[in-house]
């Protein structure tokens, strides 16, 4: 009996102490799909959570990693019980669970990454890379000697197809005869499969590599053979300081800081989020070009990229390095004066996909299934 009393007292003490401290602060809870050490998606979100906590003195955060889709609601319950007022769910599979929980907690604020369903208290957000992939494609087109570029993809879903498409458009803009060879590994995190895929691509003759999956394997395997590559998602420069040309880096913190600041200021409430959809790219600072923060192109590669000249319809003849920097500046401009997916674009079968002079809409980009010209390899669900 004494044991039980002790427990009850402890529980009550714990329960009363928490709200007392939290009163002045805004508490945000993060629901992650993977382990925070995955060096990809979840790692990047957790990195951003820590930056947001550092930047916003009134912010307090808690997180939970490796949450199964079927338990989204149960973990949201637990985070809210811990005093979280704002919940971020960071995987597409959490969509329905987030919406269901939002209905049960109408006074809490939710934001769901990569989804498309919103509610008065549920916003959506996404930081996308296709523009950066295009820039990397330009450099890959200049770096390949064999005219074959290798690409390891996780799953043939629109997000990855969009990245690969933008990359291939970039490659072809510099090197109209080059091809992008694809291998799917059907896993976000599987270093063994990524290694096998890279080696198979090397055997096919590919000599430059890019990828969309959550490990630095492709970079490491390519570097062992002395072949250049592009990093993805997290800073991977240190894995191949000589061979990594550039890459994509994400800044989820820009979105988190913006969103939470607006919540704290009372601009975002549990009633006005139905139209709040962050689709943030280079111009908003949510994506960055480079294999390391603050280093858009590896200095080891600068001279080689400056040596390759290319003609463009709008900028005349210039080096690939200058072209990358110009395009980067155009896309980083708030007015976004250049877009990779601007028509006319035909897919690899010759079907016109983007009308002349038109830009693809966010909706079209999110549902993109067709393969850009130059892509070689299987393409499940190709229209």
């Amino acid at each position, binding site marked *: 009996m004494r044991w039980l009393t002790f427990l009850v007292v402890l529980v009550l003490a714990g329960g009363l102490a928490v709200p007392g401290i939290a009163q002045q602060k805004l508490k945000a809870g993060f629901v992650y799909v993977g*382990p925070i050490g995955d060096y990809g998606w979840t790692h990047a979100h957790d990195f951003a959570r820590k930056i947001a906590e550092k930047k916003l003195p009134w912010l307090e955060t*808690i997180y939970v*990693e490796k949450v*199964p889709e079927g338990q989204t609601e*149960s973990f949201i319950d*637990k985070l809210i019980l811990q005093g979280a007022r704002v919940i971020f769910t960071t995987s597409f599979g959490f969509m329905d669970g987030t919406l269901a929980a939002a209905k049960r907690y109408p006074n809490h604020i939710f934001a769901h990454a990569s989804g*498309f369903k919103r509610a008065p208290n549920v916003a959506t957000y996404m930081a996308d890379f296709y523009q950066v992939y295009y820039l990397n494609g330009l450099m890959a087109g200049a770096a390949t000697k064999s005219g074959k570029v290798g690409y390891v993809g996780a799953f043939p879903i629109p997000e990855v197809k969009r990245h690969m498409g933008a990359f291939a458009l970039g490659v072809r803009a510099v090197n109209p005869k080059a091809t992008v060879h694809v291998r799917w590994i*059907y896993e976000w995190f599987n270093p063994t499969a990524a290694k096998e895929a890279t080696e198979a691509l090397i055997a096919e003759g590919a000599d430059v590599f890019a990828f969309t999956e959550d490990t630095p394997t492709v970079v490491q395997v390519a570097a062992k053979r002395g072949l250049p590559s592009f990093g993805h998602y997290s800073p991977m420069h240190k894995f191949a300081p000589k061979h990594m040309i550039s890459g994509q880096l994400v800044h989820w913190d820009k979105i988190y800081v913006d969103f939470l600041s607006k919540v704290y200021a009372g601009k975002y409430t549990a009633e006005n989020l139905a139209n709040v959809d962050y689709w943030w790219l280079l111009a908003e600072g949510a994506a960055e070009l480079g294999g390391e923060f603050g280093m858009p192109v590896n200095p080891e590669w600068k001279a080689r990229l400056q040596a390759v000249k290319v003609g463009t319809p709008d900028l005349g003849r210039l080096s690939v390095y200058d072209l990358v920097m110009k395009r980067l500046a155009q896309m980083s401009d708030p007015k976004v004066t250049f877009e990779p997916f601007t028509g006319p674009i035909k897919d690899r079968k010759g079907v016109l996909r983007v009308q002349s002079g038109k830009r693809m809409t966010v909706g079209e980009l999110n549902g993109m299934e067709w393969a850009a010209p130059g892509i070689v390899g299987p393409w499940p669900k190709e229209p």
Partner: protein
Amino acid sequence: MKRLGPFSVERVLVPSGAWVLAISLGAIAAALVAAGVIFWAFGINPLRAYAIIFAGTLADRRAAPEILRQAAPLLLAGVGLVLAFRAQFWNIGAEGQLLAGAVASTGVALFSPIPAPWLLPAMFVAGFLGGALWGLLPTLLRLKLEVNEVVSTLMMNYVALFSVEWLIHGPWKGKTAFGFAYTDTFPEAARLALIPGTRVHWPTLVLGIALAGALAFFLGRARLGFEIRVLGENPTAARYAGIDPFRTILLAMAFSAGAAGLAGVGEVAGIHHKLLAPGQVSLGYGYAAIIVAWLARGNPLAAILTALFLGLIFSSGDVMKVSLQMPFRVTDVFNGLILFFLIGSERLLNYRLRWAPGDRAAETADA
């Protein structure tokens, strides 16, 4: 016989219920002490940690039903394994059989013209048959060619896993899934009812309890149940008694694998309402069910308790992740420690201490 101070240590063939309970509780207590070291290493007072875990599982009205939600698949698959293990057939393939059941019921939910009131029953029948069929191949291999079933049932899990991946990325990929690897969602009529105010799909739970009860009755009273027991405990005697091992094992395994298939139906019809990545359909329930069956020691009714217990352990890990902000690997270590101690204590069950001071005769006889 050995002596331990004033006690004599004796072997017992069938431990009493009270002794089993005492040893199990002792093992759990020892595990909690050992796990306490982990909490302490993390700078958390172990007593406070356990208080938080208790408050976040059994004492929380939203979290407590989640234990039932995890116990349902563990119970169904676990009851099936109890039967297989009684027949000395080491079915390690419940995970694959569960997935096969999920696939079969998804097929019925999405592609059959069966009208509303019959759709869910048809899904359960399909799930049972799907699981049973998945278990059939290793059973036949063992019975006809004496292929070790531990290996073959285990390997079938991977075949099931990749088959599900293939289905959701290929032919069954949903038109409404926006390119993601899901099937379309089930129609309303193919979704299981929930206990109001919770997310517990109760029909699966009721089915599990009913199956446990039926199996207890069947093993104790029915002829086939008797045959399974004899075959498991003494194959030679079974042959003399004219028991057909082929038919008996085949039926036992069909039930065992079918029950795991039912667990798969519960997961897709009660929680996800679609087929999705195999690691999301089953959170390793097919493997955890082996522990459920093992701890139940061949008693189907005891599987109800052990399934609930495992559900509680899983929920405790969930609370640790959120309330104590511990890494998931540490919570896995915590879960593993408790099960390790429980299974490790198994050996002690067959011994008992008897107060026998000065009982020299026993010792000399032993020497």
